């Protein structure tokens, strides 16, 4: 449509870059425990990667990758992971979100909480990226109104 969207250079660069952005996003999510980063930052970057793709290749192409229904389900899934972890702690006899109570490695609660923190960060990442993508699609595309489901 616009000049930028037709430019071969931009299209090629975006096509090459997007997978690396997504990879970096996953790295940021998983790296949250040891350094700066975490579910939010990673989720936002992941969303930004998809948004970049959709900006250059068009909203419809973006929606082919992540449809509205999938997006909605992903947003719920991330929160389910988080809240599910919390409930798992309750079932294991602890308080809500008391990671140490989960009997994964009975002798080392700190190690358990390390893994569960990673797990929870993944949940946050999924929700955040799904919501960011859905926000962009909704705000930017008049045509999404008709194309709903």
């Amino acid at each position: 449509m616009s000049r930028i969207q037709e430019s071969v250079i931009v299209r090629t660069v975006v096509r090459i870059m997007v997978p690396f952005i997504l990879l970096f996003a996953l790295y940021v999510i998983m790296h949250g425990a040891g350094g700066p980063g975490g579910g939010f930052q990673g989720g936002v970057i992941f969303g930004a990667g998809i948004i970049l793709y959709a900006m250059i290749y068009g909203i419809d192409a973006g929606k082919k990758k992540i449809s509205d229904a999938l997006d909605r389900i992903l947003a719920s899934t991330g929160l389910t992971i988080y809240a599910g972890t919390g409930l798992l702690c309750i079932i294991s006899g602890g308080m809500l979100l008391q990671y140490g109570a989960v009997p994964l490695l009975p002798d080392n609660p700190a190690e358990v909480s390390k893994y569960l923190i990673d797990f929870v960060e993944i949940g946050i990442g999924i929700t955040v990226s799904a919501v960011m993508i859905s926000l962009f699609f909704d705000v930017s595309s008049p045509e999404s109104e008709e194309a709903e489901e």
Partner: protein
Amino acid sequence: MTGFELIATHLPVLAVVLPLIAGFLTPIVGWIDRRLPWYWVILAMFVVLLVTGNNLMTVINSGTIHYKLGGWDPPYGIEYVIDLLNGFVCLIIAFIGLMVAIYSKESLKREVPGKTTPFYSVFLLLITGLMGMTITGDIFNFYVFLEISSLTAYALIAMGDRGDGVVASFNYLIMGTVAASFILLGIGYLYAVTGSLNMADLQDLLPSIYESRVVLAALAFFMVGFSIKVGLFPLHAWLPDAYTHAPSTASAVIAGLMTKVGAYAMIRFMFSVFTPVFVIDMTRMADILAWAAALAIVVGSVLAIAQSDIKRMLAYSSISQIGYILLGIGLVNMIGVQGGLLHILNHALMKCALFLVAGAIFYRTGIRNLYQFQGLGKKMPVTMTVFLIAALSMIGVPGTVGFTSKWYLALGSIAAEHWIFVFIILLSSLLNIVYFWRVFDNIWFGHPHEIEHLQRDEAPLSMLVPMVILAALCVFFGLFAYYPLHYVLEPLSEALLGLGGVP
């Protein structure tokens, strides 16, 4: 540990987590079948009602409940504290939420067609936000849930009248963001001078630095922020439009609950974060609040008389009713505080009922202008009886719950030797009669020419049931005000004023 004991331990947190989980699973439920979300919401709200009821019973029988989230001792982690005050408010939230949820089925089909699934999801998240604000014992956690409830409220209001609804919602958003930012600022100030975020811990740490200007500024920011949230008089500009143009379901839940929770938060911060000594004697904040509330009572009632749109009239009357609650708190004597707290229950019941009635009239006739209501008394007798009872309660006729709370407020004013407040309460009751009389006059004695063609046409059953229950409760608590007063409010106001806050 048996399953039952396991659940019993975690009931305090389930009051918040259940609507949360139900809220984000609603899109999936709606994806399975579009008719399911209504049943889903009813189920969720019913379970939440049982949970909060059980919590309040536990508090009455065995004292304050502490729940350590994540198992961390306060102040390191976040703590949930349920005492009489928030147990009571939570029960109101759950109950009004359930009533409105039942009512919403038909009304949403008409007013928000085709969007019921996300609407219910947002509705449940609103309940989550209000619950979380109420239960929490950590001021930053309070802020997070405050934002959940605000965001959902903006979305719900925007679903109302085309154009007007969105503009009202945007204005509310700007005001709400200012309010939330002030509250965040106040939290930051308290953290800067104490290093803590836990309410109980703050209450221990603060008295030694009450001379600090930072603490005073924090209190000022909290009070301004909450005043915007409850729509206290000079800061009420967002409220009439928002209540008028929201869908009737949203009006009922927002008018019934949002401002009550705001008032609760004000009480909580005044008496449980700061101490009565600070708010009453050192800063005179209680006096300021009482006078502002008295002003709101008069101005709200006067402006209500000038309205012809029924929802707008109810919105202005909300401004004056909020004044009653805050007046009671500002009086800071036993009987006045009891009156103010009882008015939380009272106003939630009757204002919710009135908005539901307005919605039912709109559903059947499409009319909101009260001068066109002629003859509705014969067309929709049950609905109009509900309206009559709720309005009488609003005026404060003996035998309704409104009478009891006004009576206590007047006694409290006399005890505080503020005779002017007694006069204001009487004056406002007269003004209430004036503006409700116009409606009664049209409904029962007017000649039906606008809606002549209609036969006797009562609202659908799913709308009638919650309205009738609410009206019945207005009368029930009017006749048996002893129960809430004796079991909850008397010990509560003693704790609030006596020992320096809720234990």
